């Protein structure tokens, strides 16, 4: 992985009321970096889904310090989003991705977050260390760039 040139970091309480701030933060950086409006929207939605999962699933009631971190790394050809929590973790290999045809036929509720992340971003992978540090890393390549401000 090439060395990241620019880095942005946000540490914020793991509460759904903060989703708006997180989206704005990530959206503005993506915009600045030269992603087209379309891709900015996808990146915003992907980070929302990742953070919503932390807010809904990562922390048990008893955990006191419920925070989450969003880092954005920019290098010449891509934006990397890293969302980190310190909660209980999970096994991403055990999460069955929905077969959308079945899903829609059965009018199921929920279970779309990770599927959306994988659909919206070019790469998505998890690195889980329960109770220590759980991370999802998502990459979007800067093709069809509106303007190439990434050179720095």
């Amino acid at each position: 992985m090439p060395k990241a040139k620019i880095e942005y970091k946000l540490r914020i309480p793991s509460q759904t009321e903060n989703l708006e701030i997180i989206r704005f933060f990530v959206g503005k950086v993506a915009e600045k970096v030269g992603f087209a409006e379309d891709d900015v929207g996808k990146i915003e939605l992907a980070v929302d889904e990742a953070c919503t999962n932390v807010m809904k699933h990562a922390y048990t009631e008893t955990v006191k310090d419920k925070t989450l971190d969003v880092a954005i790394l920019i290098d010449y050809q891509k934006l990397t989003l890293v969302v980190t929590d310190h909660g209980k973790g999970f096994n991403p290999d055990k999460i069955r991705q929905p077969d959308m045809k079945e899903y829609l036929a059965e009018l199921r509720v929920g279970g779309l977050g990770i599927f959306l992340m994988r659909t919206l971003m070019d790469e998505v992978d998890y690195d889980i260390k329960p109770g220590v540090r759980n991370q999802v890393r998502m990459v979007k390549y800067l093709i069809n760039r509106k303007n190439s401000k990434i050179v720095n």
Partner: protein
Amino acid sequence: MENFKVVRLDGVNLTTLKIIGFLDAHTAPTLEEAIQKLLDEEQVNILVDFKELSYISSAGLGVFMGFIEEVRSKNGDIKMCAMSPKIYRVFDLLGFPTIYQIFDKQEEALATFPQNSAASSSE
């Protein structure tokens, strides 16, 4: 400050819910309550007007999925109209247009409800 709002417009045999702002995991409960209230009143002909919605995440989509079976089992429907291209794209990505009727314009949607012609309007 208020980042999401539901405006309810009661028509003859139909209620329009205008949803405004950002629909995410934080604001989804507000929409959930509004739809639940309609069901409690046995209003099952529901049009959701997306014209002023600027964002939706899977938590927002989940609200519709959570009610659609019940609404249809009562011979009603949840239909949708006036989505921005950005919002429509999210629906489309997940294949939702195969399960929901989505109209460009509010008037087109209104005409498809039974016993109803002009319910909302004043826009």
